[in-house]
């Protein structure tokens, strides 16, 4: 019987594959790699492409990944696949958006303060009204 290793393919939002395999072929950043059991430890990013898992008995299964990370230990292989489209520029843009949003919100301070003041005034008015009503009721009795 051929030697096997444990293969896990996961993405941030779900588990994709978990089981034993004889070989795994993945699109690493520097070119396609084939991993067999007892491979030396390795870490590499993945390109978008397909991952082929050759399971025990030669049955093959393929998965598509849009990128991610591959970790190899002698008896386990882990694929951490990305669900989001990643690129340096895209990440940069997202970071910028988060920053400007914060700045905008900080600038809106004044309107928020006005709102808070209005809320406090309203609460006071309601309390006054309630007291007046209570007094009226007492006198009416």
């Amino acid at each position, binding site marked *: 019987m051929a030697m096997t290793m444990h293969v*896990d393919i*996961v*993405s*941030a*939002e*779900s*588990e994709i594959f*978990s089981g034993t395999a004889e070989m795994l072929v993945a699109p*690493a*950043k*520097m070119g396609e790699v084939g991993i067999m059991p007892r491979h*030396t*430890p*390795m*870490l*590499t*990013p993945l390109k978008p492409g397909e991952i082929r898992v050759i399971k025990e008995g030669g049955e093959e299964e393929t998965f598509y990944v849009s990128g991610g*990370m591959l*970790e190899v*230990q002698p008896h386990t292989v*882990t694929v*951490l696949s*990305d*669900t*989001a*489209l990643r690129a340096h520029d895209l*990440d*940069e*843009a*997202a*970071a*910028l*958006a*988060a*920053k400007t*949003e*914060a700045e905008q*919100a*900080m600038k809106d*301070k004044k309107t*928020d303060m006005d709102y*808070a003041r209005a809320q406090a005034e309203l609460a006071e008015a309601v309390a006054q009204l309630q007291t007046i009503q209570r007094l009226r009721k007492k006198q009416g009795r």
Partner: protein
Amino acid sequence: MASGKEIRTQIKSIQNTQKITRAMEMVAASKMRKAQDRMAASRPYSDKMHNVIGHLAYAHSEYQHTFMQEREVKRIGFIIVSTDRGLCGGLNNNMFRQLVRDMKEWSDKGAEIELCTIGQKAMQFFKRLGGNITAQTTHIGDSPGITDIIGAVKVMLDAYNGGQIDRLFLVYNRFVNTMTQQSTVEQLLPIPKAELDEELRHHWDYIYEPDASEVLDGLLARYIESLVYQGVVENIACEQAARMVAMKAASDNAGGLIDELQLAYNKARQAAITQELSEIISGASAV
């Protein structure tokens, strides 16, 4: 004493409120179940990621990434995960109270604080408090993707890389069960060392392709993102659970109020009937 009609309108209005709170309770219950599923679905990824990072800490690499190095703490960053909407009991406020206490401890030690908020409530709270918010994300909805948080997290990671902050914490509510949510402050950076694994004690290192710095940059950023994502997903489950409990309490209270008012109403009605009867009898006997 209030008249019968007054009490009746009051009962009606409380019944209407009760209908709303009961509906919200049921909506929260079904959303909570979905949020729990999502939490379970994202767990394998963060577990595996955790394993890989654990291995990495014991690889005898020549390259030391900044995320692993301890620095003197002058400025710290917090990523605060909160809800977008209210009506979920004391969930957010309990967390903020604990956080403010933590922040005070740090600033007593002379550290400056930078904040990154996820969710509307944290934004509003810390804006009023006058916190230094450098990044924020709101309206992530009930089913967030990792894309929703990448930007905000990257701002903080860049700040760490650039030396603007020396330590980074994640603050969120941990989902224990439906009744219990625990506000948690977790250190993200520098990455805390895991316990030593016997198997990995010998001297070894990974092959990095193309090179160590590039691989680790990508991997560690994903690791932090996955931790934050897990925090966001758990916080959503907490939000729904807390809302469900709060709305159940509100419905129960409304029920109690209605019972009391009903009693008062019946008493008023009886008193009115008794009075009328005694008037008729006294009138008849006078004739």
